[in-house]
């Protein structure tokens, strides 16, 4: 840990509360302005392929079965069976109970395997349970862990508790990458989103992620913009690049491209890679594939021509 990081931790509360404020209207206006960028032809084609490579193809349902997970893994490996030039998705994201199945299905593909852990989605479980959850997922083959923070503790101002939990989970991850879900829809303000981002990064997150997908407000452009600004500033201060993952509610190619524009004009090239940016999504992938086909064939595509998973 660097000296500045240590100093920041020594008074976490003053540090987090000393971060510059976020003006809601301003950040939303900026995001809306960037959303008007017109991405056409060759740049659209590149953006679509990049977006496909950034998808964490996700299934987090009580009804998930090994069959469903295997089908999703096949989809991640070859999203468009008809077109071998179509890149694979970044990762599969499943519940811990499905990790073994997914690990077998993805073996040798290069597609990462992410597991939610730590009493997803509420985070309301004892620390020991969360750590066990994490260790088991990693042992079963997950190389990425998507944990949730305890929003209750964060909102109660127990920043040290949240910090310690993240740090403990990070340790439990071993070599697996840690994505920290802030559940921004429950944090109430952009100021809190910025603070929670910094808290997670200081505690050892490799990625910060917006949402579980299980609450009313999931990823939005302005929320992601605030988080991108946080990783940008964190890098300037500590030299470490933290990834960002918006999740939930991103369904169309148009949406995905807006996020890529946001990255391009906020943090730049270094984040335009699946190592630094992911989309937590499921139906998005098929829309990307349909748009991709439209660009290749010049015809509008129909859903019957893409695999349903």
């Amino acid at each position, binding site marked *: 840990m660097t000296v500045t990081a240590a100093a920041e931790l020594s008074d976490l509360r003053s540090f987090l509360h000393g971060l510059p404020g976020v*003006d*809601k*209207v*301003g950040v*939303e206006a900026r995001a809306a302005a960037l959303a008007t960028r017109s991405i056409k032809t060759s740049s659209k084609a590149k953006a679509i392929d990049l977006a496909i490579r950034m998808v964490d193809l996700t299934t987090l349902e009580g009804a998930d079965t090994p069959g469903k997970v295997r089908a999703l893994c096949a989809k991640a490996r070859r999203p468009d069976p008809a077109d071998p030039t179509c890149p694979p998705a970044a990762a599969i994201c499943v519940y811990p109970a499905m990790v073994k199945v997914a690990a077998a299905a993805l073996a040798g593909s290069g597609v990462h395997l992410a597991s939610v852990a730590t009493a997803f989605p509420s985070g309301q479980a004892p620390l020991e349970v969360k750590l066990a959850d994490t260790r088991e997922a990693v042992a079963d083959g997950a190389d990425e862990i998507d944990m949730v923070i305890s929003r209750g503790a964060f909102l109660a101002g127990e920043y040290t508790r949240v910090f310690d939990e993240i740090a403990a989970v990070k340790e439990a991850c071993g070599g697996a990458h840690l994505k920290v879900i802030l559940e921004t829809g429950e944090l*109430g*303000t*952009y100021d809190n989103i910025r603070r929670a981002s910094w808290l997670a990064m200081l505690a050892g997150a490799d990625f910060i992620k917006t949402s579980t997908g299980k609450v009313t407000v999931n990823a939005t452009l302005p929320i992601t913009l605030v988080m991108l600004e946080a990783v940008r500033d964190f890098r300037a201060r500590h030299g470490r690049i933290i990834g960002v993952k918006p999740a939930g509610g991103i369904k169309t190619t148009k949406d995905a491209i807006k996020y890529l524009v946001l990255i391009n004009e906020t943090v730049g090239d270094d984040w335009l890679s699946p190592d630094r940016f992911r989309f937590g999504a499921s139906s998005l992938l098929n829309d990307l594939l349909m748009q991709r086909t439209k660009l290749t064939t010049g015809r509008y595509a129909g859903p019957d021509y893409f695999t349903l998973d």
Partner: protein
Amino acid sequence: MPKSSSVKALAEPGRLSVRKTYKLYIGGAFPRSESGRTYLVDGDNVALASRKDARDAVLAARAAQPKWAGATAYNRGQVLYRIAEMMEARRAEFTALGVRSSEVAAAVDRWVWYAGWSDKIAQVAGGANPVAGPFFNISAPEPTGVVALVAPASLLGLVSVIAPAIVTGNTVVVLAAGPQVAITLAEVLATSDVPGGVVNLLTGRYAETAPWLASHDDVNAIDLTGVDHPDVAAELERAAAGTLKRVIRPVTGGVDFTADPGLRPMTALLETKTVWHPKGY
């Protein structure tokens, strides 16, 4: 030679009266003209203001302006009402100078009228603007700053140009036409809690001093109500254009000061400031 007006006012058989010296009123004090000049009006030697007196008066008005504008509207209203109280008590002095008693009464009442406006004009002239977006947006009037007034000759006219200017927080340099009446009014002001420099009053010939005020870089507005010649008014308006001063033009045929003044005497010397702020958690 006509008798001194102060003698007329206080004449008593068998007693040699003490005459009043009519000086200027600048920064709350009553100095003589720096030029040392006087001129004879109705038997009195009256200070004949020079351009340097005008300059000094602008300095005094500018110095007093931020604090006067920064006073609460309630406070300014009280000060104006205090002027009315003091003037009421000295009505005889004005009638002794030949002002009709009804006009003195109307002038007192005008102070009272404007006193009441101090904390209402902002509500009438400003307010919230319903803009199409997540913004708080409000317009409020603010005083223009330092105002030069070429005042009409009558007492009611004089009060009717000074009161609407100062009630909102402007400070004024008045070029007065009827010097004895004007200086008597200055004495009222000097005893009425009006901070020094808020009203500065120069006697003399406006044709000599007004052009200096019209072209002065530190004067924000000029009221030409008392200018009685259209060519002079036009010339002063042209000079005022140099720094884009706000100009109140003389009214052809004169102003009926007994009528309801309406809002324009105040709003003509107000600036509208509109403030925006986003609304969001």
